[in-house]
């Protein structure tokens, strides 16, 4: 999984929570104690808001931090590969170099 997908997940959770907050979800969380004066829509809104809040506070930061860590690990791995020298380069590159040094068919 790429780091950007984790970051996108974090952003999605933040946006979902923001949207539910703007829709008045915080005022409907009384459903958690069985106390709310609204209708079935308020019940759904309150439950969704509570779930989105916990996801925003607990999961979104973990995804974002995880993305940073994954990116750092990928960069460290790339640097380590570069320092390992030509023998560590891709086999395709070796074959191209070999092809350049070999005489072309028909050439004198």
């Amino acid at each position, binding site marked *: *999984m790429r780091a950007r997908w*984790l970051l996108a997940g974090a952003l999605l959770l933040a946006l979902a929570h923001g949207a539910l907050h703007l829709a008045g979800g*915080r*005022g409907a*969380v*009384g459903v*958690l*104690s*069985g*106390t*709310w*004066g609204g209708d079935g829509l308020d019940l759904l809104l309150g439950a969704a808001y*509570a779930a989105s*809040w*916990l996801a925003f*506070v*607990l999961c979104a*930061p*973990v*995804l*974002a*931090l*995880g993305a940073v*860590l*994954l990116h750092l*690990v990928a960069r460290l*791995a790339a640097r380590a590969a570069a320092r390992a020298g030509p023998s560590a380069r891709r086999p395709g590159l070796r074959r191209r170099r070999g092809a350049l040094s070999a005489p072309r068919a028909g050439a004198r």
Partner: protein
Amino acid sequence: MSTLPARAALTAACLLVATLLWLPILSLALRPDPRDLVTRAPGPRASALLARQLAAWEDPALRASDLGPMLDANPEWDFMGRTYLVMSLANVALADPAQAQRHLAVIDAILEDTQRLEAERGKERFLLPYARRAPFRSPQARSLFVDGELLMMLAARALVRPDERHGAALRERAAIVAASLGEGPVLSAESYPDECWTFCNTFALAALRAADAASGSDHSALGRRWVATARERLVDPRTGMLVSSYTWDGEHLDGPEGSSIFMAAHNLLVVDEAFAREQLALARRHLYREAMGFGWAREWPSSWPGPDDVDSGPTIPLLGASAGASGLAILGASAARDDAMLASLLRSVDLAAFPTEDEHGLRLAAGNQVGDAVFLYALTYGPLWERVAGGAS
């Protein structure tokens, strides 16, 4: 690292490290204000809660919007919300007598309204509908839930400032409660037909001690006999905790329950302090859990997997975290002067109870007025119980 399993393992490891980094940061960010831990003067959180509770009693429209949905859910909660608010106001008035006048006016308004409703509609106004489905075992057919809490409200008022308007009602109610308890085979009285609740019986005993402190009577012998009977007949053999409900004859109905035991132990502090502290310690051991600085309470110990009821509130699966039990655990932590447990529970409140402040004050949006009143009482705990313990013989 090019294979799919390898990339998945790396991603999982990064997420695990991220979790281990984030949770302590979150715990630190939600660290409670030290002034909110129990002191003699209400801290900022208690003051904001108090402001909202007072505003709701002084503004009929606000009160209707706060109480309406709660009454529809459970009429007991309206009654208990009054009791806890009166006890909170008593705490605040005793801690700061110079500010007592406004608090006394609200206490008097609550008492007058509650007694009026009882006179007009009977005890059933404050009980769940199943109170009418069968006859009470006791010929008096009274509910100790109603009598005990009304007695506590009257006694708390008298302890702040005696007022002969309520003196006769205090003495009469104390006599009723004492007679109800003495009549039962296990010195307990029903709250519902053939249902005795430890919450209500310990509340009634504490109310009698409060009445003793206010009026000079002495019900200490009844308290001692009740505790002796409870040790023998009303304790869960597996955990040592008081069971939550039992029949009039003393047959256990429900085991030890988080939304009961913390309150019962708090009540017993002014009846038999040693027994109360044993119960608080057992409740902490069997029902309280903590992780990364966040605390919560279970409704049932693992040895008694009982059903949740309307007082349990929502329960978070896997953790077994009960909103009702956790709310009363806050009172247990205050009563035990356990600042670490209180701080952990306050972090959980900030994480999961949606504290919301508006022009009226603070409320927990995930809860209701009775939950806020319990919370307020827990955060102001001390002065009333000190007066009861010091004044009762």
